[in-house]
């Protein structure tokens, strides 16, 4: 298998006392008879050379193996996942000469070539990969495709920044989220509870207006509904303290308990989040088809990893990537302008439109028949306040490739029966900052996403980090339970399932920036999580 063959080649060269360029190793691995090629390459290299270069190899291969596969020959998978390693026979042949994702590792010879991690994915079907050759020939299920976008507010922003717009937004949030909770508790409005006699049992659903600890270590939660507010006291010994830690301002919760004797406060017995029902059964495609979930491309940044991106798009052209018919981009296509002070000094492309043009060029590398959906992020040239509408016409014109769907952040995308909630993820910063480390951290961004699912809102807290643009409805509410929740923004890779909802925070395509360095964040760059839409299994491929 290529994994070993690359490693073996590097090793073989080392034994002969040579270092090698990674391209050279790849080329050698691609030769019909690698062993012979290695020998030839070594012969071919000048006596004083310490390093086998690609040129040496080409020379050697040309001499010895006229019939070797040309490096650029299409149709051969440059990438392997662990699972596909056992495709056996075609193994060596499958490695083509193009710079592959694994090339870096291959030179070091000691690490795995395909640095892929899998989430229990089945082996990629290499059989089919071999069956099809070039892009044009690929029989991809264009006519079988189903793609629908919901909750898109692009072009439908009706807010004019008035006070009433804000009120409408929050009311909508309350109404839609309280509906979810209503079945679970016997809700009474704050006004009514205030009139109830002391000692009675009561329950209230409201937006969290305030959470604070009392001197004695209990927690006071003030809930608000459309009639007013009412305080609930969570005793520290009730076993709810852990839950209280998770509460964010302005999310919708239900509290059940007993009224104090003076009826001024509710002693909480239980606390409910809208949450995703455990019984949630995700949908799935009827056929084997995949979607690549990526985000944070940051084209235009000095740190944009063009090579990794090329590897990724190259791979998309391989037979192995044939099932990848969808590409979902969760924001930050470009690095943007004026996102932080003196940003221009760190921009490779200073012009915002040129950034999008460059991005469009990069997007063109993606097979033409791929369905692309993208939402904006905080680096994109749209308003920062959420919900963010999709790009304006000027940028849409630039991105006129693939007939990409450009929708708002957040938006739900229904792909062949799989509901994907796409959200850029700015609120993750806040969730991570506010919640205890074990519940949300940058190292496990998906856990922070679980919290959002639990709250059924992508950015509950108002007044803090997240900016809110008031609209006629709260587009940030997760009204319908998605099957997949896809975010980015924090540049960390993480995924996992919460109540059967697959949460994926895709990494990024931008290497560590000075800022990230300064706050000790090591981004996961160059990964592409590939989702099987029929099984909702996911494979993560590394391209850097």
């Amino acid at each position, binding site marked *: 298998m290529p994994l070993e063959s690359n490693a073996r080649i590097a090793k073989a060269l080392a034994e002969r006392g040579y270092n090698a360029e990674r391209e050279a190793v790849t080329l050698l691995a691609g030769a019909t008879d690698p062993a012979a090629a290695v020998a030839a390459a070594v012969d071919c290299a000048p006596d004083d050379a310490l390093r086998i270069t690609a040129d040496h190899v080409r020379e050697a291969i040309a001499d010895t193996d006229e019939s070797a596969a040309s490096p650029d020959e299409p149709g051969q998978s440059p990438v392997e996942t662990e699972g596909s390693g056992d495709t056996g026979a075609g193994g060596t042949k499958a490695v083509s000469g193009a710079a592959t994702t694994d090339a870096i590792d291959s030179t070091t010879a000691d690490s795995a070539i395909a640095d892929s991690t899998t989430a229990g994915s089945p082996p990629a079907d290499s059989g089919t990969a071999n069956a099809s050759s070039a892009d044009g020939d690929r029989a991809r299920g264009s006519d079988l495709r189903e793609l629908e976008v919901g909750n898109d507010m692009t072009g439908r922003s009706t807010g004019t920044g008035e006070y009433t717009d804000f009120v409408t937004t929050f009311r909508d949030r309350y109404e839609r989220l309280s509906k979810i909770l209503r079945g679970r508790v016997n809700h009474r409005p704050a006004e009514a509870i205030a009139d109830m006699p002391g000692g009675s049992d009561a329950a209230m659903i409201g937006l969290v207006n305030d959470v604070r600890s009392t001197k004695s270590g209990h927690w006071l939660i003030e809930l608000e*509904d459309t009639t007013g507010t009412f305080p609930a006291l969570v005793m520290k010994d009730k076993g709810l303290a852990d839950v209280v830690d998770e509460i964010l301002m302005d999310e919708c919760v239900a509290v059940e308990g007993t009224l104090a004797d003076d009826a001024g406060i509710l002693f909480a017995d239980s606390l409910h989040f809208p949450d995703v029902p455990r019984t949630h059964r995700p949908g799935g495609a009827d056929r084997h088809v995949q979607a690549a979930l990526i985000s944070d491309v940051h084209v235009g940044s000095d740190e944009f990893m063009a090579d990794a991106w090329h590897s990724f798009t190259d791979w998309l052209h391989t037979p192995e990537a044939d099932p990848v018919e969808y590409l979902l981009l969760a924001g930050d296509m470009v690095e943007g302008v*004026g996102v932080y002070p003196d940003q221009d000094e760190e921009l490779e492309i200073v012009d915002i439109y040129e950034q999008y043009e460059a991005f469009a060029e990069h997007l063109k590398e993606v097979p033409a028949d791929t369905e692309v959906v993208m939402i904006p992020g905080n680096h994109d040239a749209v308003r*920062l*306040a959420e919900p963010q*509408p999709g790009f304006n016409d000027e940028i849409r014109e630039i991105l006129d490739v693939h007939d990409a769907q450009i929708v708002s952040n957040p938006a739900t995308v229904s792909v062949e029966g799989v509901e994907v909630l796409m959200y850029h993820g700015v609120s993750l910063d806040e969730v991570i900052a506010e919640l205890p480390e074990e519940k949300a951290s940058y190292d496990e961004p998906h856990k922070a996403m679980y919290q959002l699912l639990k709250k059924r809102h992508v950015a509950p807290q108002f*007044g803090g980090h997240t900016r809110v643009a008031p609209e006629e409805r709260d587009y940030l509410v997760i009204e319908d339970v998605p099957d997949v929740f896809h975010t980015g923004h924090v540049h960390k890779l993480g995924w996992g399932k919460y109540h059967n909802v697959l949460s994926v925070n895709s990494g990024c395509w931008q290497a560590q920036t000075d800022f990230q360095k*300064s706050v000790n964040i090591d981004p996961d760059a160059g990964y592409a999580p590939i989702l099987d839409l029929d099984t909702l299994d996911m494979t993560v491929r590394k391209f850097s």
Partner: protein
Amino acid sequence: MRPDDERYFARIEERLDEAWDVAETAKEQGRDPEPEIEIPVARDMADRVENILGIDGVAERVRDLEGEMSREEAALELVTDFVDGNVGDYDSREGKIEGAVRTAVALLTEGVVAAPIEGIDRVELLQNDDGTEFVNVYYAGPIRSAGGTAQALSVLVADYARSLLDVDEYKPRDVEVERYAEEIALYDKETGLQYTPKDKESKFIAKHIPVMLDGEATSDEEVSGFRDLERVDTNSARGGMCLVAAEGIALKAPKIQRYTRDLDEVDWPWLQDLIDGTIGKDGAGDGDAAEAEGDADGGDDADEDADPDAAEPEPAADEADGPPRAEPSQKFLRDLIAGRPVFTHPSEAGGFRLRYGRARNHGFATGGVHPATMHIVDDFLAAGTQIKTERPGKAHGVVPVDSIEGPTVRLANGEVRRIDDPEEAKAVRNGIEKVLDLGEYLVNYGEFVENNHPLAPASYAPEWWVQEFEAAGADVRALRDDPHVDLEHPTVDRALDWAREYDCPLHPEYTYLWHDVSVDAFEALADAVAAGEVVEGVLAIERTDAVRDALESLLVEHAATPDALRIPTWRPLARSLGIDDGLRKEWSEADLSTPARGYADGENAIRAVNEVAPFEVRERAPTRIGNRMGRPEKSESRDLSPAVHTLFPINEAGGPQRDVAEAANEMDDTGHRGRHELQVSDRVCPDCGEHTYAALCPDCETHTEPHYECNDCGTVCEPDEAGRVECPNCEWEVTAATYQEVDVNDAYRSALETVGERESAFEILKGVQGLTSRNKTPEPIEKGVLRAKNGVTSFKDGTVRYDMTDLPVTAVRPEELDVTADHFRELGYETDIDGEPLRHDDQVVELRVQDIVLSDGAAEHMLKTADFVDDLLEQFYGLDRFYEVNERDDLVGELVFGMAPHTSAATVGRVVGFTSAAVGYAHPYFHAAKRRNCFHPETEIEYQDDAGWHRKTIETFVEDRLDDPRTDDFGTLVEELDGAIEVPSIDERGNRSTQSVTAVSKHPSQDHLVRIETRRGRSIRVTPDHTMLRVVDGGIQKIAANELEVGDTVPLSPSQQNVPMDAATSTATDGRIKTDEVTSVSFLESDVEYTYNLTVAETHTLAANDLSVSQCDGDEDCVMLLMDGLLNFSKTFLPDQRGGRMDAPLVMSSRIDPSEIDDEAHNVDIVREYPLELYEASRELADPEEVEELIQIGEDTLGTDGEYHGFDHTHDTTDIAMGPDLSAYKTLGDMMEKMDAQLELARKLRAVDETDVAERVIEYHFLPDIIGNLRAFSRQETRCLDCGEKYRRMPLSGECRECGGRVNLTVHEGSVSKYVDTAIEVADRFGCRPYTKQRLKVLEQSLESIFEDDTNKQSGIADFM
């Protein structure tokens, strides 16, 4: 001390005694809180230091060392004493280090601030990973008040002590290094640093610092990476540590380096890299490269002297590189804001030309500018206007000097002329098309010493030339005496003769700026001149653009006709071009050598000139100094806002005006007038036991004493020695303040009666809402009546004050001070500076150290104060009048107190005259005596203790910023980071929430706040003494918050105060061009523990840019009339908060000891002539220390008989008040007008790139404003229009939960989008970068996206079809 000086001080002290006796008699009557004068005469600094530290033996040692060495050196010297156990009683090593560190800080702060005690928590010894020990110094927030130098020195002292005690260096772990960087950045974001080190710098410091800097957490904001470190106790920012590292080490590296050089045990070679600013610049990043470099420097002592040059181009660099030049620096341009023009871009031709010299009104962080230039720059400069400069310091106060060259301009008719007369400047200024050159900029040598800045190449000036002339053999003395010879402005013939005869460089008068033209232009000009013709003595040459440009760059005066340029003074030009009087060019192109051609890549023709000219031609103006306007000058009375006549509480009864009469008339439920429940002190009469709030027993007229009764147990307590009162049972502090029903009506009426005044004597008598002092001792209303009558108001401590920008002056003419020689003789002046008897009003007289010049406004104010004091003595105390002034001449010879911000010591000064400039001129030593080392105005603002931040500091903060309200009304929400900055805030219920702001300072709230609400639903709560803005006649006016009235138009506020924070006390940031109307002004009891003050970036950067010199420029010190202070000041009025005692004259110095003043003033040079060596050294970019021996500075005379006199100057000026009286910044209308003027000026000045100015205004002013407001909008809180209740989030019910009233936003579209159009327009008009335009465009679209309804947009005609 000379007998003459003795007599001088005796005179002052005699008058002081006279006043003292009167005041004592008055005070003894017991009508005041204390029956004695409360301003003691200060003893010496050594005592203060010992007392504040409580370490025995320090004072003695300090006195020993004083005079022998500087305080910094003494601090280091004391380290050995501590280590050897000679001083202090410490057994442990950490104790010794601690004692030494504290003493160092105390010495440098002269024992007047709490920093040495509270700012250094402890010193401990910890273990390095290799098992060795290291020193950890644990700093606390109050270290801030020590100032950067003391902070930095404390580290050096700790290191020195460490090395003497054989403790190893601190070896930081990598995580700790990273932590420092993140933490300093975090602290800066949250609280603000004057100087923000780049991460690389922070890391570099952390890596190299030999002792560990640690400290207690000063905020709740935590670092996100590098948490839970073993050797760092907290995850929060450690404010003290951050200050020491950033404002101490990073900022004061040059100063510290001076001391490390003198110490063998301590070697900090890495400081050089900090000074050079190479950290963070080179790509090495991790500092390794820099480290290596640093080590190399340290290892090679021979390199030491060359070190300072490292940042500059190598003097011996390849010839083709051109002559040595000071490296241009962009720093001063940072955070340029709208309305403050740039005068010279960094080192740009056509800008201010550096000339060395000290004028008599110069030399203490000042820069001399020709008064004609002041007018030419559209009056933006006036005496006292602060400018940010490229070098040698960061900021200068502008002083008018007319003995330097004025500006050169091109008029609309094409004529180019130099203007050396301010009147001419005014006459032609409308016809100016281009300002080709701003003239000379006078900087004294001492400035370079003070800032440890390498000398920059000097302009070729007569004083330099004349020395070369003399050296060449000329009999200069004879020529000086020759009435027909003017050595400064010789005739053409003479200048040419001299150059030929003596083989001496051409006189500067006829030396043109050859270094500004290229060799090509030089050749073209030579050809043009050779082809010209001389008609009636005027050379006419063909007019081409190239030739014209060359002449303009050279600053050759000429006139223009449509096809010819006519040069009247052409012979020196022709000669310099190698052309003789017959217009014969005596050389050909081939004669020019290759080096001359290639010099500075052919851009500098100076070599070519020297090759063809028959004499030597020097570089005329090799150094241009970039600068821009900082703060305008100040001269105005210090009023509390709201203004207060009497410190008598009236609750809310006085209405928004706090009218005592109104309070006295208010009828309560029982039909009694003027009875109010007031919190005042409970005092008891020692004779009859009667309880009262008054200082005098109403029954037996005996002075009463405060009565301390514990609220809880009722025990009557007595104060201990320290004045603290603690209940022995309940163990808490007890105050004399109680709630009492006070008959204000009676108090008011009887006060009127006592002083025999009627209500008609004054317009209004304003009291205070409540007292802030601990015991709530009220002032007798009588004093207020008389203040109101005389039109003065009281500061918080009972004194009447007037603020003025400090400017130094060492010699004056009686005439310019609007007094006569007679006055001066009466004051004891006998001779002029040349020793001639003082006879004429225009003789120049050396000013004595404690003599001051009042601005016209101050004089007027002091006259009123004198009348008030006289009335007080006569009508209240029943004594004789003391001042008896009729006109302001009567003030001459009277004594005043001078005080600098943040200090607690006053200095006695004597009035000698008046000036129309809006500044306070005094001897540099007087200014320095008032100060303490390195008290930046901003420094002590955020003085923190456990209770939070000081209220006093708000005031100062506000003061600092209020001299530029227009800036603020533009909403200078210039946060450096676009990223969200969040700080914890506390809402009404004491709950914490995280709020986003740009930069804040937080303060404990006052007892009361003023709430102002406007029609558009915005409201703001500010401290009552907060200055607000009001729109009057299209202009914006400052007004005390409580003086705002319903119906007033206030400018719409910027985002700052909109940021959802509780009790946001926006600091005058509420000015707007768009206006709003006040609908209610109310006073409420403060219900929050803190008020938040948003730091406008301008302030920020002022601080950041001020750096080492900030305290001298534009600092407003105040003056008080002596008797007023003696009679009316009482500590009992001071607010009961830490910092409340700041700015109060707790002690007074009656005579200045030059050794004890801020040492900055010691770096004023006091010679009449600079040596030739200085000029020569400047061409080599030498370190100022190299010529130190040759130029006497103040420091050299310390401790000698000459310390009080002999301050000579190199340059005279006709009048110290020349130029505009006020900067145009103050006279122009709204912000837009100022910005237009700023951009217009930018177009006009050759040395200014208007696109860059526009770019920066957008970048630092508009964009942050828009971005900040936009952010604030999308996370704002709301407020009830009816009851003022605030909501963090919009209530679901839509209406106010408290009162059912209308709730509205606090940030509206208007405040977000107000500058978008202007910014876009400016960006277009001035051709800004596409990057900037795109940012604006993206923002504009964001605004549309938020504020426009997509479905309602009419996108085209189709919508109507």
